[in-house]
């Protein structure tokens, strides 16, 4: 969260200059962050003991075929030169071709990222809708059984391995009860029917007005999304609770109560308003975490998202794909940063 809260400086400059300065600063921070990210990923990728050439040509290839592939990848050039070539291509919007899938990396990412975005968004939504009220109630009813139950719920969500929880969830809700759809984003015979607009099937089928497919997609996404939702709920509710507790002890709460405000007004109007800004940070972080793609969930639910894309690419030394994925994840972080920064300004009168 390095970009956030550059407020309060340069108060005496004219507003236009101030704006320019700020935008400039933000842009430089983004550029440096992204460059650092690329640099580190690139070099880690190149020193890994996996041979990208072998993964293309196979271990039976003759020396000539191996050499040809080696040269065509530009691996004979010094690392730093390779890095600059790579940067130049990226600046032109060319992430290269994935060694493993043979498709342009940008195309691959356009295909896999919406799947993750859809899942992570629904997961975060569930996390917020349940987590925030749960945290508030736990704080207000501190020490009662409600607080204890909330604590146990959060603790379980936090400590259960998601791999296990996912398998059990599938077994119970899909295998035994049959309430939800199985792994994958759709039943196989519904695939490729609605036209791809956003790549998010729920949205695409809604846009197309195809409610049969929407329903089918919903039955497939609800279980993994609930699982991720549970995970982020655990975090969000615990953080909400501790933010609330901090505020509830403050003197203005006593003042408000003394003034005779109803408990609801005290909690929601005064206390909750004051924790909004902190909550945004927490939620943005947890959302960003899910957007990186949760590899295990994606594997169990055969969900073709960015997490498993980057992981399998990494394992086969497909560095173009890994770097492309990393840039996207990096961009997501930066965007969420900027977005939450904007929200701060909206909610926090001091930031205005």
């Amino acid at each position, binding site marked *: 969260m390095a970009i956030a809260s550059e407020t309060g400086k340069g108060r005496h400059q004219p507003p236009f200059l101030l704006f320019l300065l700020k935008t400039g600063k933000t842009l430089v921070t983004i550029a440096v962050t992204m460059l650092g990210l690329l640099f580190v990923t690139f070099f880690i990728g190149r020193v890994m*003991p996996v041979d990208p050439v072998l993964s293309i040509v196979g271990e039976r290839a003759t020396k000539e075929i191996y050499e040809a592939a080696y040269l065509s990848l530009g691996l004979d050039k010094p690392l730093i030169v390779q890095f600059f070539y790579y940067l130049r291509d990226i600046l032109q919007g060319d992430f290269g071709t994935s060694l*493993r899938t043979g498709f342009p990396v940008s195309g691959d990412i356009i295909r896999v990222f919406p799947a993750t975005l859809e899942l992570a968004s629904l997961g975060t939504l569930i996390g917020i809708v349940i987590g925030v009220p749960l945290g508030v109630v736990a704080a*207000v009813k501190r020490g009662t059984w409600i607080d204890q139950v909330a604590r146990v719920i959060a603790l379980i969500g936090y400590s259960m391995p998601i791999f296990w929880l996912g398998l059990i969830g599938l077994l119970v*809700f899909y295998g035994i009860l049959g309430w939800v759809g199985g*792994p994958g984003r759709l*039943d196989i015979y519904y695939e*490729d029917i609605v036209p791809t607009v956003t790549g998010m099937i729920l949205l695409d089928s809604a846009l197309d007005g195809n409610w049969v497919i929407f*329903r089918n997609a919903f039955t497939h996404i609800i279980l993994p999304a609930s699982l991720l939702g549970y995970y982020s709920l655990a975090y969000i509710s615990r953080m909400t609770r501790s933010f609330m507790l901090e505020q509830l002890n403050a003197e203005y709460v006593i003042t408000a109560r003394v003034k005779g405000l109803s408990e609801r007004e005290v909690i929601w109007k005064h206390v909750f308003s004051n924790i909004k800004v902190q909550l945004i940070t927490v939620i943005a972080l947890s959302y960003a975490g899910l957007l990186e793609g949760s590899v295990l969930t994606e594997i169990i639910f*055969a969900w073709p998202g960015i997490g498993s894309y980057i992981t399998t690419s990494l394992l086969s030394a497909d560095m173009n794909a890994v770097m492309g994925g990393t840039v996207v994840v990096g961009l997501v972080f930066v965007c969420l940063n900027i977005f939450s920064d904007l929200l701060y300004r909206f909610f926090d009168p001091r930031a205005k």
Partner: protein
Amino acid sequence: MRKLTYLALLTGLVISAGPMISAAQAETPANMLIVAGQIDDITTLDPAQSFEFSGSDISRNIYGKLVNFDPSNLDAGYGPDLAESWTVSDDGKIITFTMREGVKFHSGNPVTAKDAEYSLRRAVILNKTPSFILTQFGFSADNVKDTIVATGPMTLQITTDRRYATSFVLNCLTATIGGIVDSKLVMEHEVDGDMGNTWLRNNTAGSGAYKLGSWKANESITLISNPDFYLGAPAMERVVVRHISESSTQRLLLEKGDIDVARNLNPEDVAGVSSKAGIVVDSELRGRLMYVSFNQKNEILANPKVVEAMKYLIDYKGMQDSFLKGQYTIHQSFLPRTYLGAIDDKPYSLNIDKAKALLAEAGYPNGFEVGIIVREAQERVDIGQSLQNTFGKAGIKVDITVGTAKQILGVYRARQHDIYLGAWGPDYPDPNTNAATFAVNQDNRDEAGLTGQLAWRNSWDIPQMSEDTLAAVVENDRDMRAKMYNAIQRDHQNRSPFAVMFQKIEQTGRSDKVKNLNLGGAITAVSYWVVTK
């Protein structure tokens, strides 16, 4: 406050009630075959380049070849496909194919000798990894103009550089690289003289039972039936292979009836589904062998008595019946069962007393120290540990080095190992594929760099056996050729520094409604066009 509690409870209820909109249940359509598999190894669908298992499964259903295996009778060996018949010249160097009349590509273009000429020349000129399957007959980019020629609209003549067994040449043409592409269509998509290599990566131009519907890397492949297939329209109009890496997920889908076939069940899940009604488990032999080899550069291992002793220090049966159960079966010669000339002799079993006696004769009554290198794959490491244990019983102290593929192969190819533990899979469906690597080493010097040959990698100098093995390549009588391989394997079994231990079994779970699913055995790949439901 109470309202708040209610709100929280209500939201919770709404969310958890969502899933109760029950999913429509679940039997796959009758004209559609849905397969769960692991298809993340596919890098291209171009038959001139494709060299992965999943790729050959797809390719076999899309591209016709000059000669091919009949899925209903794999033991018969190759038979006519796009070539209706062929003749061989007296000197054994020229094979003339007569093409089948009336076969069409998916595009509607007729399949002619010109297409066959183009396809084979293309595979040689592109010179991708599997090209050696063709170039071993002397074809090169410079001479294909004269050696692979359509002499008429429906006749193709290929001329090899010397005499080879016809069965050897034809077996090689059944490999993926022998796929015949639609030359007109492919050339329309040529970019910078790549002979359509980029386009054919994710498009297809074949004449087989299926054409490509879509390929989403690491996600799914859809095949759509070709109603004009010359053997008749396939019963399964769509075949979808979905990438599902988790065995337990595949099992759940199979049990629920959402898929018809699960290709990658682990032994626990196989045991789990085999008791379920409506599910059948097939076991099929595949071509992959698991072996250990002893580097002859190591003075101790160069002693034939020591090698023999070590062959008696392997717990073949114990491993087969425990952690390799259902995945590997004991096999002790270098040709996989179902290959031409394969033998089923199993002279070795765990016999510690005999091994000790042999070691004493060799001058190592108290054993010695030795290293095993192995790739970081679970089953291989397990085998390594079993070896460590049984070798230890005769006083041989084993140090296991586990590494990545690159590290271990690097050491192996540089001949710097003591003992290598690993797998070998045949490249094409002819016995020479394994014979030429296990039993040929024409130049044992380091400078020769014959890294493709396992005999060389283990510094095993065998001028006579190399000659015998290469003689089998030119023997035209198929039975005689098989006998030659029988003899070489028995000799190899006796005195080679290789202990072949196991052959791969693949277990596949399928719905009992699915009939005639043939995965291709050790010889070839899956055939979807004969499947019915």
